[in-house]
């Protein structure tokens, strides 16, 4: 209002202020709103077009993840972790299995570790593509969304070749991965990587310096470094404020210590910085994928599962030929592994930030506690802080770049 009247001289503006009675109104957005991808409800208190306050209500997708995990075997929790974040199921698989392996004190074979990194980084690219693509779609730009989704299809094709499924891959096992890398995979991957890079370049050409896109993103949804730390915000949002925290560097797990990659950071912590951080992270992830391929080719074929009998199913020949093998198979299938009593926390860098698992075992085959530290949930909490005083239209890109995923947020 003030902006529209300023140009007409102070007197007129004063008239407007005095005569126009503005009442605050409450707008209900969601839980299923066409301009947000995610099941969440916003109660927005509007002062004209500005957000005076906003109440974020989550929980619409709560399906008792922890309760379910606490009633099955350790293995049976893995498919549930797939369904935390549909964009990057492998990352949750990896996080959970690494945490269980921590309790077991288990080291996985080197090929398994490289394959986990390979699948993780492909997932990360897929996740960032969805975030940036969907953000464009919700800002009314269809074309870049299609570039992003086409590239994500190629990522999912690669994940299908590697894991056997596109979205909920259920790929990682305690002590291993489901399949060894197919022989034809490196060639297929290199071919598709060049296509993905071309699509990313197209995306970049249409979006990154697009006047409308930049205007909608620059200086919107700003959060300070201090507030990020207070709210325990991690991932691209924290990095966009200039903190170079990436758990792949800070607490290197799997083979990340041997991999050459950079951690991009932003300066002001607005939506545009978050976008730039994500775009650069995709390039870095593709670099990591290439290093994984080279390393796996160098290693050649070999075991991708641990030999530890506590978690490993016996080879089929042993099951059919030997009584002990048959008994072991029966116990593995009906009960699953027993994890030593104790507690452990392990966190990985997921596409949204720190994805942690805090596990407690009483020594039996059923977990006592499976806590998932969900980056989506924790990153969403400071959303009112980012939006108070902003225009209602800024809510859309801010929510897009928080990238809240209902499954992971509500569990």
């Amino acid at each position, binding site marked *: 209002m003030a902006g529209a009247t300023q140009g007409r001289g102070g007197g007129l503006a004063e008239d407007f202020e005095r005569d126009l009675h503005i009442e605050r109104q409450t707008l209900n957005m969601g839980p299923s709103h066409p301009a947000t991808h995610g099941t969440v409800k916003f109660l927005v208190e509007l002062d004209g077009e500005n957000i005076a306050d906003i109440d974020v209500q989550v929980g619409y997708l709560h399906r008792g993840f922890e309760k379910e995990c606490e009633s099955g075997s350790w293995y049976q929790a893995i498919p549930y972790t797939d369904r935390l974040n549909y964009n990057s199921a492998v990352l949750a698989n990896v996080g959970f299995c690494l945490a269980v392996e921590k309790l077991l004190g288990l080291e996985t074979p080197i090929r398994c570790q490289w394959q986990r990194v390979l699948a993780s980084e492909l997932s990360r690219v897929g996740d960032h593509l969805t975030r940036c693509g969907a953000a464009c779609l919700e800002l009314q730009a269809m074309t870049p969304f299609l570039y992003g989704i086409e590239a994500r299809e190629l990522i999912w094709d690669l994940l299908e070749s590697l894991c056997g499924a596109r979205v909920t891959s259920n790929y990682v096992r305690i002590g291993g991965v489901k399949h060894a890398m197919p022989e034809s995979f490196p060639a297929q991957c290199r071919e598709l990587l060049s296509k993905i890079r071309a699509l990313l370049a197209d995306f970049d050409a249409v979006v990154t310096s697009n006047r409308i896109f930049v205007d909608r993103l620059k200086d919107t949804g700003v959060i300070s470094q201090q507030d990020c730390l207070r709210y325990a915000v991690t991932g691209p949002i924290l990095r966009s404020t200039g903190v170079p925290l990436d758990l792949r560097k800070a607490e290197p797990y799997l083979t990340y210590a041997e991999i050459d990659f950079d951690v991009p950071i932003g300066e002001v912590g607005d939506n545009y910085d978050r976008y730039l951080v994500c775009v650069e992270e995709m390039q870095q992830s593709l670099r990591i994928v290439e290093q994984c391929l080279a390393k796996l080719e160098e290693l050649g074929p070999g075991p991708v599962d641990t030999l530890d009998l506590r978690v490993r199913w016996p080879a089929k020949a042993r099951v059919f030929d030997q009584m002990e093998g048959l008994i072991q198979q029966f116990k593995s299938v009906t009960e699953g592994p027993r994890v030593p009593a104790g507690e452990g926390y392990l966190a990985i860098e997921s596409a949204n930030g720190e994805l942690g698992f805090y596990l407690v075992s009483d020594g039996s085959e059923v977990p006592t506690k499976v806590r998932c530290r969900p980056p989506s949930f924790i990153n969403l909490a400071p959303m009112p802080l980012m939006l108070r005083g902003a225009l209602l239209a800024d809510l859309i890109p801010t929510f897009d770049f928080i990238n809240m995923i209902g499954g992971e947020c509500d*569990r």
Partner: protein
Amino acid sequence: MTTRDDHGSPVLSRLLEALPAAVLATHARLGDATARVDPACIVEVAKLLRDASGLEFEMLTDLTAVDYLGEEPRFEVVYHFYSVARNQRVRIKARVSEAEPRLPSLVPLYASADWMEREVFDLYGVRFVGHPNLKRILLYDEFEGHPLRKDYAKAARQPLIGPRN
């Protein structure tokens, strides 16, 4: 969890030195520095972890609870702190009883405690005294009971809206 040793962890050693009465037990198994503290002292402990030079735990990364049904005190509230500046972690635990499941809120010190304490309240029924807005977060207000308690039947159903005919 019977010893009160620092197990070679500088964080535990600082904690034992500064607040010897608050720390009940420590361990550092699997490399995770852990201290069980008196629930009444949780704010003091968190303040030390956040403000003392050399500790600087800027983030309360995670907060959850575990139900040890049959033990007394029954609930264990588990805090994970992370220091970005020093790249170190510490786990602080506090036990509260079933009869009086309450302990002081950390919201005044760590903003991230807001939603996470609400979640623990929602799912375990632990009350955080001093929380500005302690209400359910994942479930709806009409929900009865706290589903992550071990004595809450997994198959129990409480639909907010009944089935349509």
